């Protein structure tokens, strides 16, 4: 049989055990919530920062690609400039060769052809041809060319040498009687024209393997 003291002890134990169980449950629940919330937060923040890292990686890739593209544009420009320089060198070399040619019979033939083709291009008539100090072209030759042009165009043509001398390596400048039409076929002008007309051909020869 229980004494009053034993009964009280039993009641006390029961009440305190219940309280302890409740307290443990409260703390366990709080800890569980704490860990769950922290984990959720950590996962979210990690995802957020992972996006930032991925963006940085993407940006880094773009930095590299942009630099490569810029460098390629830069080196292509250098190659193009060098090619232009080399094409110019070919024309300069051609000019040097022409300097030697004007002392040969080839030049005389060229000059006659130039007078003929220019006179024809201008449609004949009374024409004056201008040459440099070194060039000698006989009146007899000019007459023959004029006759040929007259025959071919059916327009009476005369060609005479102008008194004024031109400053050019060679070639001619031709004017009509009124002086309002002028055709420049000096060596220098022909070279400049050739730079436009045969540039791609020159480039092809220069840069072929």
């Amino acid at each position, binding site marked *: 049989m229980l004494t009053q003291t034993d009964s009280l002890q039993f009641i006390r134990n029961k009440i305190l055990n219940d309280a302890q169980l409740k307290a443990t449950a409260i703390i366990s629940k709080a800890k569980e919530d704490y860990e769950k919330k922290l984990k959720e937060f950590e996962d979210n923040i990690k995802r957020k920062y992972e996006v930032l890292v991925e963006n940085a990686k993407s940006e880094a890739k773009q930095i590299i690609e942009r630099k490569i593209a810029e460098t390629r544009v830069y080196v292509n420009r250098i190659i193009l400039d060098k090619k232009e320089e080399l094409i110019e060198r070919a024309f300069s070399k051609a000019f040097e060769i022409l300097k030697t040619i004007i002392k040969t019979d080839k030049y005389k033939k060229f000059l006659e*052809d130039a007078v003929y083709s220019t006179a024809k291009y201008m449609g004949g008539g009374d024409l004056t041809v201008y040459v440099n100090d070194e060039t000698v072209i006989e009146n007899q030759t000019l007459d023959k060319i004029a006759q040929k042009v007259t025959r071919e165009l059916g327009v009476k043509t005369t060609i005479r040498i102008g008194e004024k001398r031109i400053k050019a390596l060679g070639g001619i400048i031709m004017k009509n009687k009124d002086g309002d039409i002028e055709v420049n076929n000096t060596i220098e002008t022909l070279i400049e024209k050739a730079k436009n007309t045969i540039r791609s051909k020159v480039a092809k020869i220069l840069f072929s393997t």
Partner: protein
Amino acid sequence: MSIEILREIRRFEEEARKIVEDAERQAEELLKKIEADKRKIEEDLKIKVNQQIAKIKEEASVKAEEESKRIISENEKTLKELVEKTERNLNKAAEIIVKTIIGEGE
């Protein structure tokens, strides 16, 4: 039951209430602590990520410079070859120009 016993039981209940209240206080403190812990986690992660991003950008910058130097170096080789090759064709090209001008060619 005697008054004495009832008083004892109330005392036990009071003791139990204190135990529960203490647990509730601990739980509340734990929940308060979570905000500080979140800030700490975020700050630590932010520092780590910023370092990581700085490293990624630095490496990209170095890699970009290396690639650029490599391309320029390759280009120097290409330019040298171009000049050498062109030197061989220079006379031929000049002759074509001369022929075009003095009318012995196309």
